[in-house]
């Protein structure tokens, strides 16, 4: 007891002695971010690419969000929430004094309206399916006017009822698709809400000149006092990544949104002047090769294991300038459920050959590997091609446009696909998000993203069991269950996990904030709400 008191006293003394550390950054200043492509949309129920994802997060909020720079859930518009014992009823209490950018108070009805907007087929939301666990989903997709599972008990209380317990539901409710929008503004915009967004977020929309720039400014009534730190965000579009880096070095811009182009990467990284300007962080990403489990000879598990052993991942990581780490399993290291002890299949061409002989292919076979035709993906596919040739497998590289590769995968008609440029970055930090959509039975064929055509019903069942563990005290057991699922999946080898990409964000010296904010795994790539301008300090 005494010791605890003493350390507490010491801590207080420390805080008192170093006020600068304890203080939040001062508000003020601006940041200019460049992108090559214009944004598609700022409509939270519609936007679904890496580029608009974090901008939408700065303009809108949901009931839940994450601790800045981390994958840890925390309430956002909700002040608190409770989960019923059966795990099927979630009750969210809204914070006091929440306001939209137009000044109107946020009510529980707005939350209901917004989620229903994502589910409504007329919205054409790419994320509507995430809410299929909510009661009344099928009816609404079939034409019912709303979701019977969502009710506003009063102005500040939202009750959501589910069809079954779902441990990922708080993550789902933190997705952009569930962000709260004001009905009257959506209607006023007449179908063009995506270019005139009004939300509750840290920044409010000022103007968007298509192809040129998007300007946001600090929302004075934002619910988190003192946040955001910047007064103004300007996104400039149409800037080639190479040009963006040159402009950054001249001090004209603050963040090169598209990252550092491969051709300049080594030069920039080796320059000691850039040491503090490049933030490096983990992403929820795995690059993998799918092995079509429905297509001979890849339907033979020994052949798939042999291919896993034949591919030299270290060499591929060097090929991408060490912008990642070799992958050992489907889940990336930053994801809960990642198993440090799982070492994957070691690179061993001799063992691969032996396995192929065992499987009845002593002289190998001919196959195809599909890859998206944007650098560095064809080069990576060629490296895989060479590795396979060394064990006798002749793989023809089919380098195609993104849509064509996705189509081939969706019909499971490609023997092998290198996922680079298309998949898979998790939508939320939970092991389940790497399973159902890309490895589960339900996503095989018909345009689904399980390009390996892998369907293991026993694993599907275990996945469902794991996701019915909703209570907080079951969280560890659930994570362990998922670990087991992925470890057993590795034995079947439907994929060759190749590498987990890291994010490198190059920013100006005048911007401050922890490196994790510049490589935020959720607010990809930058958490604009919490970075600050040093000139204002």
């Amino acid at each position, binding site marked *: 007891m005494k010791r605890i008191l003493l350390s507490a006293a010491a801590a207080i003394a420390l805080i008192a002695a170093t006020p600068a550390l304890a203080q939040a950054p001062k508000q003020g200043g601006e940041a200019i971010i460049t992108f090559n492509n214009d944004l598609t949309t700022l409509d939270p129920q519609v936007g679904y690419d890496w580029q608009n994802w974090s901008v939408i997060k700065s303009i809108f909020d949901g009931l839940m969000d994450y601790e800045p720079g981390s994958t840890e859930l925390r309430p956002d518009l909700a002040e608190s929430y409770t989960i019923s014992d059966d795990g099927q009823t979630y009750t969210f209490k809204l914070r006091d004094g929440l306001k939209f950018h137009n000044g109107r108070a946020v009510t529980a009805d707005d939350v209901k309206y917004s989620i229903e907007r994502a589910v409504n087929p007329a919205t054409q939301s790419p994320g509507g399916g995430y809410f299929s666990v909510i009661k009344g989903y099928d009816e609404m997709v079939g034409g019912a006017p709303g979701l019977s599972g969502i009710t506003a008990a009063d102005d500040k209380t939202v009750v959501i009822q589910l069809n079954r317990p779902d441990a990922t539901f708080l993550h789902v409710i933190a997705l952009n698709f569930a962000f709260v929008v004001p009905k009257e503004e959506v209607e006023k915009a007449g179908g063009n809400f995506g270019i005139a967004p009004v939300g509750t977020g840290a920044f409010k929309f000022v103007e968007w000149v298509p192809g040129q720039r998007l300007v946001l400014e600090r929302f004075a009534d934002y619910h988190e006092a003192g946040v955001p730190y910047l007064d103004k965000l300007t996104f400039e579009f149409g800037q080639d990544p190479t040009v963006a880096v040159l402009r950054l070095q*001249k001090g004209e811009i603050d963040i090169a949104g598209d990252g550092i182009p491969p051709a300049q990467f080594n030069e920039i990284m080796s320059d000691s002047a850039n040491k503090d300007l490049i933030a490096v962080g983990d992403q929820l990403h795995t690059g993998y090769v799918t092995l079509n489990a429905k297509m001979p000879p890849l339907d033979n598990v020994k052949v798939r294991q042999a291919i896993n052993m034949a591919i030299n991942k270290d060499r591929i990581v060097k090929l991408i300038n060490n912008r990642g780490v070799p992958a050992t399993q489907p889940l990336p290291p930053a994801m809960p459920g990642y198993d440090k002890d799982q070492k994957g299949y070691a690179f061993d061409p001799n063992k691969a050959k032996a396995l192929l002989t065992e499987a009845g292919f002593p002289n190998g076979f001919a196959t195809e590997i599909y890859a998206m035709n944007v650098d560095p993906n064809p080069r990576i596919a060629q490296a895989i091609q060479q590795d396979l040739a060394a064990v006798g497998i002749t793989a023809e590289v089919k380098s195609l446009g*993104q849509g064509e590769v996705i*189509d081939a995968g969706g019909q499971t008609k490609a023997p092998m696909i290198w996922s680079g440029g298309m998949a898979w970055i998790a939508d939320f930090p939970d092991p389940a998000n790497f399973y159902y959509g890309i490895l589960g039975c339900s996503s095989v064929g018909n*345009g689904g993203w399980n390009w390996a055509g892998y369907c293991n019903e026993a694993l599907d069942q275990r996945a469902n069991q794991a996701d019915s563990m909703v209570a907080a005290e079951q969280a560890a057991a659930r994570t362990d269950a998922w670990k087991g699922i992925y470890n057993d999946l590795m034995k079947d080898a439907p994929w060759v996990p190749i590498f987990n990409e890291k994010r490198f964000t190059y920013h100006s010296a005048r911007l401050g904030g922890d490196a994790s904010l510049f490589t935020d795994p959720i607010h990809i790539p930058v958490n604009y709400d919490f970075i600050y301008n040093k000139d204002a300090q």
Partner: protein
Amino acid sequence: MIAYIVRRLAAVVLILLGVSAITYCLLFLLPADPVDLLAGRNATPEMREALRQELGLDQPLPVQYAVYLGKLVQGDMGRSLAQKVDVSLLIAARLPATLQLMAAAIVASLLLGLPAGMYAAMRRGTLPDKAAMIASFAGVSAPQFVVGLLLLYLFAYKLGWLPMGGYGLANIILPALTVAVANGGWYSRMMRSSMIEVLSQDYMRTARAKGLPRWRAVLNHGFRNAMLPIIAMVGIDMGYLITNIVIVESVFGWPGIGQLLWQGIQRLDYTIIIGVTITAAVVITLANLLADLLTPLIDPRIELR
């Protein structure tokens, strides 16, 4: 004259019908399905089917095309598949920038090409002539994105004279110059051969014989006559110009319809691709018409019929 314009405008309508039909068919020959990209990764087959219906992509191709044409006549170019915004809104926001760049590029091409060609013709067979023609050959052959990046590196990054990309008065110089390197090179070669022909004409000899200095004879009599085929060429080259502008806009971040098209192609955004193609076709045909209307102003002997 008015009858001529009416006739030409009627032809424009026919051309647009053809362009839209061909573009529409080509898009649906692509071995890729926009619904796959739009439905999101967690969509079930039923959701994809629902989206296909919502977008009208489940209809037979001729029906889809007819519906599209029906709306187009009313000025409705549909909604962007990926952006969920009216296509006409997106194009209207970007068309002025493209028109500005086109105008600047044409002026720059002529300013670069005509004097160079004229000079080469007057110094025919000498070293300056050969140098100018080799330079123009290089300009015509070099890929536009390479020329653009080189100019950008030299004038914007190394020398810092001009801004690096973006939209504005100073920003237009480099993209216009990039287009002028190719188009101007082409015009200089045309101007050279046209001028050589004019220089051998009787009226040129007459002009000199009556005592005009060579430069005045060339400027007053030669230049106007030699320029005629090039003006016609500017009109005919509109398609080529727009192609170059699509590339140049992407290099310099010029916020025009070229950039919109490029991004639409990457996202399989059919309505954007068709909308921009039709808009470009309108611009090309109208520019052709304008070039034809201008010729009689330069050469009164030409009559429009």
